[in-house]
């Protein structure tokens, strides 16, 4: 498919990188020469320098022949304008990034009039994901599938965890429930384990399980499974706002700390239920005064990655009971800080990229089984795909042990008639099933691609 991305800042680059791996023809437009230079050196895309809100630039770049335009420049208004122009010159589908809370609420009203196919809001989507984790204290990431029947959770093995040193195949016996470990991150290595892999301290583990089973698993490991009661958000930017709003609506006591008095007043007006405090969230005295050390969770959502990481590191070290959430714009920091506890990291750009890619895959029309939804776990390196099975699928009604699957891939769960289970060798794929596939290879679009 031909895709044009207007604006190649962080989000634009993350989307371009993902789409490039899925073999789309990508054109990127940006009026910043440095951005263009950088992307043309690192990605195999066609770079065009210019203002994407100009019809002439779009026509020169051949955008009228694109199937999809994704507008992710800094400004919501410009994004909308680009989408309107693109629509006018013949692009069929358009996606705009709209993240300003005021517009985000209105966008659904005017989406159709604007010819917008889809609005992506990285900050709000990130806030949603953070909420999932706040509702389940022990996990560092929670993704829900099959209408809530099934979950992929990620956690870190800390010191004194009873499962450290255990083999993967012995786990089920230990917890007496069915769970499936689907990916492990160790140092910079990410892999899908077989039964004889030994779990180690500091491993990131992703597993598939039903909610009740997951709760049992966490209880056995003496991790907390309840929800957070109160949350402190440091940094009242867009993510901070969305998170405060959602947490407030879910009955969590919210406290927001921000340096900017103007912003504080505004937040106070928008979220009446939250406590807004004005002060520097990187100042220990301020943290002390605002009672941050007594909260059960702290989310670092300031604009500066460095500040977020620093405070998270400090909090994780001095107050291990606090659940720390860290927002990062640059993903490199996570790799640089391997082994150092900086809490649960969330990267809005990857979450936005996931949303866009889910949309793009659904656009690639085919008679075969489309991907229902897709998400990434563990540093964006492991892909979880959900497929709905129709008549067209090959290998129907054949026991799984007789089917040869692709490498680096795991068939993690089957949901049949609203019932999810982890498949064994005698199970089969039937029409109507919802199937969860986990892979470290990227770019699987059709169900048939999971077979060897």
């Amino acid at each position, binding site marked *: 498919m031909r895709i044009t991305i207007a604006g190649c800042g962080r989000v634009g680059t993350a989307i371009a*990188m993902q789409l*490039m791996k899925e073999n789309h*023809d990508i*054109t990127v437009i940006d009026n910043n020469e440095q951005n263009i230079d950088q992307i*043309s*050196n*690192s990605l*195999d*895309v*066609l770079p065009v320098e210019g203002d994407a809100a100009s019809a002439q630039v779009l026509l020169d770049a051949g955008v009228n022949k694109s199937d999809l335009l994704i507008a992710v420049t800094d400004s919501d208004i410009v994004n909308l304008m680009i989408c309107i122009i693109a629509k006018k010159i013949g692009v069929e589908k358009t996606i705009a990034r709209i993240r300003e809370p005021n517009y985000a609420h209105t966008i659904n009203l005017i989406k159709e009039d604007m010819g917008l196919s889809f609005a992506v809001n990285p900050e709000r989507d990130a806030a949603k994901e953070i909420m999932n984790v706040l509702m389940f204290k022990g996990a560092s990431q929670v993704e829900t599938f099959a209408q809530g029947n099934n979950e992929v959770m990620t956690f870190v093995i800390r010191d004194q965890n009873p499962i450290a040193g255990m083999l993967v195949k012995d786990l089920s016996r230990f917890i007496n429930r069915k769970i499936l470990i689907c990916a492990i991150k160790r140092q910079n290595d990410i892999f899908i384990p077989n039964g004889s892999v030994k779990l180690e301290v500091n491993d990131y583990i992703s597993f598939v399980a039903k909610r009740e089973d997951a709760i049992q698993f966490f209880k056995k490991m003496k991790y907390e499974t309840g929800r957070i009661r109160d949350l402190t958000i440091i940094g009242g930017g867009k993510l901070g706002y969305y998170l405060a709003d959602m947490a407030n609506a879910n009955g969590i006591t919210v406290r927001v700390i921000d340096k900017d008095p103007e912003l504080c007043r505004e937040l106070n007006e928008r979220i009446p239920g939250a406590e807004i405090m004005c002060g520097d969230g990187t100042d220990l005295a301020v943290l002390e005064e605002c009672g941050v050390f007594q909260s059960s969770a702290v989310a670092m959502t300031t604009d500066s990655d460095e500040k977020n990481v620093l405070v998270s590191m400090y909090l994780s070290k001095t107050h291990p009971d606090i659940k720390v959430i860290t927002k990062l714009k640059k993903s490199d920091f996570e790799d640089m800080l391997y082994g150092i506890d900086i809490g649960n990291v969330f990267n809005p750009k990857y979450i936005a990229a996931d949303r866009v890619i889910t949309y793009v895959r659904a656009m690639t029309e085919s008679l075969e089984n489309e991907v229902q939804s897709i998400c990434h776990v563990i540093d964006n390196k492991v892909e979880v795909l959900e497929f709905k099975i129709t008549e067209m699928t090959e290998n129907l009604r054949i026991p799984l042990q007789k089917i040869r699957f692709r490498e680096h891939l795991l068939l993690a769960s089957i949901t049949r008639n609203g019932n999810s289970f982890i498949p064994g060798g005698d199970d089969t794929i039937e029409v109507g099933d919802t199937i969860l596939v986990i892979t470290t290879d990227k770019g699987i679009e059709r169900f048939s691609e999971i077979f060897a």
Partner: protein
Amino acid sequence: MNKRLIFKIIGLILLIEAVFMLFPMIIGIAAGEGDWKYFLYTLIPCAAAGAGLFSVRIRNKNMYAKEGMAIVGLAWIILSLVGAVPYFISGFIPDYINALFESVSGFTTSGITVVADVEAASHGMLFWRSLTHWIGGMGVLVFMLAISPVVGGSSMHLMRAEAPGPVTEKIKPRISTTAKWLYAMYLVLTALEILALVIDGLSPFHATLISFGTLATGGFSYLNSSLAAFTASQQVIVEVFMVLAGINFSLYFLVVTGKVKKVLKDLELRWYLIILAAGSVLISLNVYFTRDQFTGFGEAFHQSAFAVISGMTSTGFAAYDYNLWPGFSQVILLILMFVGGCAGSTGGGIKVSRFVLAFKGLRGRIRETVNPKGTYNVKYNGKTVPENILRSTFLYFLMVMVITIFSTVIVSLEPGMDISTSIASVATTLNNNGIELKNSLVAGFASYAWWTRLVYIIDMLIGRLEIFPVVALFVFLFRPMEKAAGKVKKHLF
């Protein structure tokens, strides 16, 4: 530096070269000549080494500008070293440095030959010579990018290091598609010329040789007198395709996609054609009025146009003995050699677009000096040229000057070398040209000292790769040596 990736790509290049060597071997067998086995002797170890290097497991596909340049520099040197082996072991060119010269002259599309009597050469050798032109014309790394996805998104560094011109731009979003398109257009043009020449009475084999030489702007011929013995119509066919080969290939893509207007407005193309026309007129008037070698002005113009096209596109086919021409015509030809073809073409030289940019930049500077408050953006094809591109254009001129001077000084040490021969011989090698204004290379080359020959060889590589990859490679090679020297110094003092 990602050494594993470098090894892997070099391996692939060797494999590609081995496959290309199959063609002259097959032709040798078909022609019933005995020297086909020398190609086999070369290609078996070449393929084995290539396969060995290619099987290196890479940890990541990350590549940066320096890897790109090192790979391109290394690939071309290795390509030439291996390409020279069949000439050498078969005894076709008994001296290895001479064989290397022939090979480098082939790959860099210079087209200067050390073979005194090419008419005596076997079919296989002739074909290999011309095939090296064809591979080198569009570039072997571009060929690799077209067929293999070894490198990831950063492969633009390879393309940029190999393709000529101040800025290298993709014509399609993906590099592999871009490379495929470039080779497709290259192939189609080559096939058209072969067809035209065959219709005009040349044998298919000879038509292929000449077409490889034309489209790559190479210049190897199968006759000792280059193209002087060709009929006028055959010369015209070659002329037309030389002009086409000197044009930026991405313009053909625009033609294919129906954007002819954009092509006609292209600044570089306009200047390229203007310079060709002006050069032809100047030389034809000069030769017509100063010597009476021609029967009429028509013939004088035809001969001058051929010389100008051949000289400016850096093809180097000769239809006449240019030594007999007046000084003015020779000087014009020498200047045109430095101008060269268009960016993104197969032609050599400094490139028309660099001249256009440099003159526009110069004009802007002058206007700014005269009127310090005025703002004068340098525009090219309607767009403002970024300052860094202007700077690198000026620097490129400076580097060409430095290299020309250095090389001229070194080759002038050769006994019996005069001032015009030394300049003309450096000009023809550095610009990958092949026009021999002073008959310098054919006559005396084999007797030159090895270091003089090496200067020419390095100049040809520098000219084809536009300086930086070769210089970068030397820097990489010398850095460890510098370190070692530093250590020795520490111990001594």
